[in-house]
């Protein structure tokens, strides 16, 4: 059987939503510019040999609606030959696209695929513009299928006895790690600088143009402290423990990787960066979707004949501090190898993009540290968990 190799991967800096630097940047443009940048990094690359563009997106509507994958393939590659598809597994969409691409390559259906995700939470609200829960499901007492994610985080905190103090400390550490990483320029190789031009009316109602470069993650806060986090009020439940400070941020961003087969590698004459080993998703009650990785991680380890000890670096998506702590405690994961450069609480969580973004961060960091196996894992809305394993070559 073929193997799927990752040769390139780039992400945009992650902007805050809804008032960050990407607030007026359309998600399809963001994605297209990322892909364009990635293609330009490979000398003499023939764009028409790409088989497919797979785009993960958690809220595919409005600006990112209408098969946005195909629109991105047209806009990013500037040729008609390459098709595009949109994939949705909420927060795992980005990772799912990599898995689909790998599966296609392994089975011989394709040789070169661009996979990744894009999300603009500035444009599209959480849950979309028109949530319409099914009456027949809901009237039978299954309202939790449609619960907001914050409520599930509260439920996890309650069920797994995660204290507010621990959550705040976890959130604080995430910010510190992220700030340190940015200071040390650890994300520099991954980030595509995006130039934004804005036309606006100034105070005198005159048209003005301003342009700026976005190449640093906007999320981490220098001014935060445990005391400040302690003071925040719970936002999802009365007397709850989940606050805006210990939840992931709403963000805008895009991330794409190029995944190719062995034959294609030879043709291109280029060294691969990593191999995609395996990927698993698992289901669990929607009420406690936060602990999804607890089911997904053992599943993927078993399939790839590895043990948890073999994994040297983990990117666990910090949807909520409560959920992350529950997963770490349940699986007894070594805290030192998890989110070494900060997580979504500090860096942001652009839903559909996150899977691809974390994969890029993981591969880059493992290369720097000379490690072999790494894992990207996250909880997924409506009671799912996902985990994927990468091997650095």
């Amino acid at each position, binding site marked *: 059987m073929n193997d799927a190799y990752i040769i390139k991967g780039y992400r945009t800096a992650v902007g805050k939503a809804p008032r960050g630097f990407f607030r007026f940047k359309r998600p399809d443009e963001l994605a297209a510019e990322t892909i364009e940048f990635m293609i330009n990094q490979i000398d003499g690359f023939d764009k028409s040999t790409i088989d497919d563009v797979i785009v993960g997106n958690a809220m595919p509507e409005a600006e990112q609606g209408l098969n946005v994958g195909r629109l991105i393939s047209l806009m990013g590659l500037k040729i008609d030959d390459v098709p595009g598809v949109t994939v949705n597994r909420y927060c795992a969409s980005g990772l799912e696209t990599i898995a689909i691409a790998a599966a296609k390559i392994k089975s011989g259906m394709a040789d070169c695929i661009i996979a990744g995700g894009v999300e603009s939470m500035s444009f599209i609200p959480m849950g979309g*513009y*028109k*949530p*319409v*829960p*099914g*009456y*027949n*499901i*809901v*009237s039978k007492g299954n*309202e*939790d299928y*449609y*619960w*907001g994610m914050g*409520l599930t985080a*509260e*439920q996890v905190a309650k069920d797994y006895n995660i204290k507010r103090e621990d959550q705040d400390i976890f959130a604080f550490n995430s910010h510190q790690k992220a700030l340190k990483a940015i200071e040390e320029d650890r994300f520099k190789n991954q980030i595509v600088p995006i130039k934004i031009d804005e036309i606006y009316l100034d105070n005198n109602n005159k048209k003005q143009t301003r342009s700026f470069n976005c190449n640093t993650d906007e999320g981490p806060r220098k001014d935060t402290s445990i005391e400040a986090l302690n003071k925040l009020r719970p936002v*999802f*439940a*009365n*007397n*709850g423990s989940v606050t805006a400070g210990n939840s992931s941020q709403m963000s805008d961003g895009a991330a794409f990787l190029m995944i190719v087969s062995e034959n294609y590698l030879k043709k291109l004459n280029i060294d691969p960066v990593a191999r995609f080993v395996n990927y698993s998703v698992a289901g669990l009650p929607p009420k406690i979707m936060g602990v999804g990785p607890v089911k997904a991680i053992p599943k993927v380890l078993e399939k790839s004949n590895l043990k948890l000890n073999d994994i040297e670096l983990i990117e666990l998506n910090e949807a909520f501090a409560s959920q992350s702590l529950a997963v770490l405690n349940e699986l007894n994961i070594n805290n030192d190898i998890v989110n070494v450069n900060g997580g979504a609480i500090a860096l942001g969580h652009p839903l559909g993009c996150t899977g691809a973004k974390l994969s890029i961060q993981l591969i880059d960091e493992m290369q720097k540290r000379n490690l072999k196996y790494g894992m990207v894992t996250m909880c997924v809305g409506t009671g799912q968990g996902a985990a994927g394993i990468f091997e650095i070559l």
Partner: protein
Amino acid sequence: MKYLGLDINSREHNHISLSDGLFFNQENNYEELCEHLVQHNIDAVIIGNNGYGSKRHIPVIKKLIKRLGIQVYLIDEKSTSVICSSCGFRKIKKGKFIKCHRCKEVIHRDTNAAINILKRFEKGFWGSNDDHVLRRKRRKFKSKMNSINQNILQGLNKGIDLAEEKYYGVVIGNEGQHFSAGADISMIFLMAVEQEYDELHYAMKLFQDTMMRMRYSSIPVVAAPHGYTFGGACELCLHCDRVIAYAETYVGLVEVGVGLIPGGGGTKEMTLRASDQFRKNDVEVNLLQEYFLNIGMGKVSTSGYEGFDLNYFKKDKDQIILNKKNQINFAKQTALNLHEAGYTKPIERTDIKVLGQQALGMFYVGADSMLAGGYISDHDKNIAKKIANVISGGNLSQQSFVSEQYLLELEREAFLSLCGERKTLERIQYMLKNGKPLRN
């Protein structure tokens, strides 16, 4: 039609003065009065009613005149004797005979009053008519905080019947501290506790029918709310053709506080108003949600102006007035204007767009999320579900157009089912006892 004004002077042996200048005293035993009325083919007599001095004699005279087959109307005679009957000048010297400073006319005080009474009636001072209704509200029944009970509803019906016959419109207002704190929950509580559901059903039907009667009458109905305008009183305002609200008005559908839903057409009206706002290709559920939350959270406006934001008042129709003294007068003027503009009875609506299961699912999830977040209680969720059921027109599998009566039926059903709940009764009892809502 030939009318005659009649003034009773209680200070002078109940002398009777007519607007055509004749006097009768009590010794005549009203026989001459009766003869006079018959001779001149009078169709109706308007009696000035000041509410205290002539209280004893009005029923007697009324009875006598009615026996002759002549209609009798009572009308507020306030300040009829201090206005000149020929020029309307206000300050005229007091005394038996009065002389107007402007037109220099000399006239007997009581005749002047009788003419003014007649004029007031002919001019269409229906205000007197609604005062008649409201006086009953204030004095006769003395209900707490002007709460609306069956007698007031019957009074309203009677007032509208009367106005349709004789007047140009109806103004509903009062001069108490507050307009009204809503329907009389003590009655509902008693009926619910004794499990007299048929009577309760009848009472609710009467309430709804009265509200519908106000909307679908051939005369304009104008409400003049001020101060507390809660629950049933808010529903009353929702059904008026115009609302002239005082700036200091606290309006809201607060029935959830006592474990009920607005049962007098309030929920129906919110559905109807939401339906009117729907535009093509809109996400209707989001809009409907606003109206749902008005009821579900018992939102009360902090001023008359906020009433517009909460959709209790209609932006293009209703008005806010800052001068409370002028409020009723302005309301009367509004009713007159409506009449002069050619007011006709509206046609009953059958084109209310309800969203069915599409909206119901979302409201169920919303209520459950609030419960899971600890913001509301189990019973609140239960009530929210009932409101959702009415406001989305039941569990219809598609968007449909329904009539008002259909929604009113759903509303009654939900109201009655909640009256059978123990927690609702506890809430009503607590409210009656402590004047504060209970969270259970």
